[in-house]
């Protein structure tokens, strides 16, 4: 079944149809949450909250881009979490290094490469966490999740021009951060 059919069935109360949509989006929603908050357990909670909230609010979704609507719920949940008084401001920066936010080593990958990749992944995650929230979310949506400017603007309910400027500032900040750790970058990126 295509997305529209699943969506209509979900609105009619077919939980199985809704779960098909969940399976389709759960990895990307979880990854957005993980990159935003930097903690696996919190990202898991946010992803679950996103799908439950979306199911409860399905009757309010009239038409349009379901993916953008779903990611808006997720990014709002991330923002709520980040703004909540319970968040420890300096949380997890050390723990993030240990978090499994990278895939396991493949058969072709040497242990050294795996270690470097793991360190790079942790370093990027730390750098993301230090970005201002409005820049971080744009960078994650466009550069990591490969959303278009227009779709990112739709998700964030901001003009495309704002997405462009925030993305530019976020990339510049990431460039400044990554330039301090060039040894972690793969060979093709060190020449820049």
């Amino acid at each position, binding site marked *: 079944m295509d997305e529209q059919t699943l969506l209509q069935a979900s609105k009619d109360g077919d*939980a199985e149809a809704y779960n098909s949509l*969940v399976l389709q989006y759960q*990895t990307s929603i*979880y990854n957005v949450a993980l990159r935003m908050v930097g903690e696996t357990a919190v990202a898991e909670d946010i992803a679950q909250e996103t799908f439950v909230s979306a199911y409860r609010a399905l009757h309010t979704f009239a038409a349009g881009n379901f993916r953008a609507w779903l990611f808006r719920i997720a990014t709002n949940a991330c923002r709520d979490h980040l703004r909540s008084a319970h968040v420890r401001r300096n949380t997890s920066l050390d723990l993030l290094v240990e978090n499994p*936010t*990278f895939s396991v080593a493949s058969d072709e990958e040497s242990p050294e490469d795996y270690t470097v990749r793991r360190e790079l992944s942790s370093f*990027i995650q730390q750098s993301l966490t230090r970005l201002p929230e409005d820049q971080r979310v744009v960078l994650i949506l466009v550069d990591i999740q490969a959303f278009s400017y227009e779709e990112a603007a739709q998700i964030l309910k901001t003009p495309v021009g704002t997405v*462009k400027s925030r993305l530019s500032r976020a990339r510049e900040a990431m460039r400044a951060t990554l330039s301090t750790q060039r040894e972690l970058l793969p060979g093709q990126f060190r020449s820049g």
Partner: protein
Amino acid sequence: MKLFSRSSVDGHISQEIVSAFLDGALSTKEMSRVDHHMTSCEVCVQEADELRSVVSVLRAMPTVPAPRSFAIPVPARAWVPEPSRPWWSPVPLVGLRAAAAGAAIALAIVFAGDLSGNLGSSPDVPIQVGLAEPAAVIISGTPAGAEKSLPLGEDIVVDAGTSAAVENTADTFSSADIQPSLVTDDGFSLGLWPLELGLLILVVALGGFNFILRRRSSSL
């Protein structure tokens, strides 16, 4: 968007333009101008290369598998709540309207019964009106107007049917002093006025409340 913004240095392309250029998010005209500038500007070329490296590193970030399924329990219908409804929404308003209507009907019945003399005390019963002072006003049929300027402390006899006299003495004794069995010969029973007044207040209050809530509900 200006290609050469004020923030750019020495006429180089602004970072925002370079960033959009990497994503192909410029107009055809802007793209060709940037391309042309890049052919002769090493600084901007390096800027673009570095940003491209950043984007490449970010896009190479691994996708982390979801640790578990986020599917909702089936059947899920049971735990999906009804859409939240404000307490002033139409259903409570129906009850409020019914209460106001009931109070209005009750007021009409009591008032009609009061006027017809079917409710309250018999008009034959003498009525005693007590005063705060030891003096008392006894209404027993004295001509209207004779009771004006009642001195406190004296007993005054007033005939039934002299409601005007009762009104004229209002400045001399308070209505709170009137005994509940006051009945005039035209059948008007003052003994029911607290009930009528209470019902009237209830009707006005419920009607006003209903009006406010309807306005509030319709403004949502």
